[in-house]
């Protein structure tokens, strides 16, 4: 038993090393003074100041944030509706089809989703004159489409693991479907909606392939700019950008864990009372 758990500790530690070694090397070299990424020239914040002076990267980051914000919000509305249908409408005709319909985007390779949406936009432009050209709005439509599937799955699993008695009680007390949803169900599934929004926001912020297909000239998102820079070669300011993004995410995750633990201890205290 002893040897086995030592074996487990060693292999699991190697796994974590594998996860974090490249990230730490990236963070350390983002503070490197030398332009040659692997030659250590002492500590410096040079690449951070160059990053903030790089208008191309800043503009792309702002565009990506805007697209991610709008797409995540739209995806949350549509995805919550779909998740609600899947778990609260009971059996209905075509439920299997609806369920497959909603989750299909999850298994579609990005290259196919991107290509097919682009061809749709081109065909629609030819037929109806809309969307005229491609840019921010076509990227938002594309991102909303694949994010809504993720939100639907998260909301559905939260709803089906949830106790229905509260909703039944509200119905017995005369709540109409609308107020039932907004006053009872929605507050209860809020954690699922928030994590669905955050996941959609991250997925949208991160997407290179679909955005490359459906964006137009002059509408480069942050991943598109990073991709073209990385393909060209040495890019120390990308290290600085990566470090900043990792920092933001790490703070967010730590905050979320802290919040979760506080809530957990609160529930324990309530239970004790």
């Amino acid at each position: 038993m002893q040897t086995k758990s030592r074996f487990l500790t060693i292999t699991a530690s190697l796994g974590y090393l594998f996860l974090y070694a490249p990230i730490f090397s990236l963070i350390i070299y983002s503070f490197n003074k030398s332009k040659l990424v692997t030659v250590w020239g002492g500590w410096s914040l040079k690449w951070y100041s160059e990053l903030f002076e790089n208008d191309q990267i800043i503009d792309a980051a702002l565009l990506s944030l805007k697209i991610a914000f709008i797409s995540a919000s739209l995806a949350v509305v549509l995805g919550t509706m779909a998740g609600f249908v899947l778990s609260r409408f009971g059996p209905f005709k075509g439920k299997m089809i609806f369920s497959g319909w909603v989750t299909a985007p999850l298994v579609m390779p990005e290259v196919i989703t991107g290509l097919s949406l682009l061809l749709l936009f081109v065909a629609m432009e030819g037929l109806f004159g809309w969307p005229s050209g491609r840019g921010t709005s076509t990227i938002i439509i594309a991102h909303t489409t694949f994010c809504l599937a993720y939100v639907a799955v998260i909301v559905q699993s939260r709803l089906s693991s949830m106790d229905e008695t509260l909703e039944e009680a509200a119905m017995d007390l005369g709540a109409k479907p609308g107020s039932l949803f907004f006053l009872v169900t929605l507050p209860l599934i809020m954690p699922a909606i928030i994590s669905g929004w955050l996941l959609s926001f991250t997925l949208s912020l991160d997407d290179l392939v679909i955005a490359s297909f459906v964006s137009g000239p002059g509408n480069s998102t942050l991943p598109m700019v990073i991709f073209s820079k990385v393909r060209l070669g040495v890019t120390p300011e990308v290290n600085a950008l990566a470090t900043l993004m990792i920092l933001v995410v790490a703070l967010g995750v730590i905050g979320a864990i802290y919040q979760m633990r506080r809530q957990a201890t609160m529930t324990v205290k309530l239970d004790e009372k």
Partner: protein
Amino acid sequence: MSMTAKLQKYNFIKKVNWGRTFVAGVPAFWLGLFFFVPFLVVFKISLSEATIAIPPYIDLLDVDMEEAYISLKINLGNYLFLFEDDFYLDAYLSSVKIAVVSTFFTLLVAFPIAYAIAKADGSKRVLLLALVILPFWTSFLLRVYAWMEFLKKNGLVNEFLLTVGIIDEPLIMLQTDFAVYIGIVYTYLPFMVLPLYSALEKMDGTLIEAAQDLGCKPMQSFFLVTLPLAMPGVIAGCVLVFIPAVGEFVIPALLGGADTLMIGRVLWDEFFLNRDWPMASAVAIVMLVVLVLPIMLIRNSQGKGEAV
């Protein structure tokens, strides 16, 4: 009101419930328009001929009202070319091979991590879980970039091996299939760890003790008890890793060499480099039929909830 009248009224309301229709209809309409109709367009364009114009294809249907003339021209050339040229078949096979091999290695790396998390308790478990999920929330592209820097000729891995004296000259690791495997394992590791962890967490530890009391060696008890019990997690994790890996574009494009053939990359190149939209569409349709449909069938037979 009599009971039957009440029931009739209830049934009537159920039949034309506009609220329900609206709630189900809006997302269904959105997905229909922006996810399913596009495939019909792709199919249509895969049957057309490429040309130098904007957009770069000739429409199938040519309607001329004045001359009362309608022509429909279907071009099967793209599909014939797909099946004749070994290049495309090789790309499909190579994608499946790369996805299978890297899914296997992801399982190897993920298993001890998931097991260690399941065996840890309290706040240590939360921490270990968070450490696996954290990289998943950072940019995928930047994580792939981190490996480019790490594996390159004068990168940290080579520097380390040279300093320690294991190698005499730097290894060429970047732009090889090896780097692609690493990239896929690294990127999709959380997808494997989480289902494995939830399967292992449910496992009853006394079963292993019982097996060992009955004379099982650690290795035996692993293969005879632990692994079979973790099987639902293994399958769910493998499906979750295989699906995105097989259509991957970014990882082979950045970490792979010129000869790393993957179908996602072929489609991208047909579209962006050759500007052959009909050919790219034909590749997409075949990919849909031979890769995505089987995956969907497997997923459905496996049961919905656990796969995601």
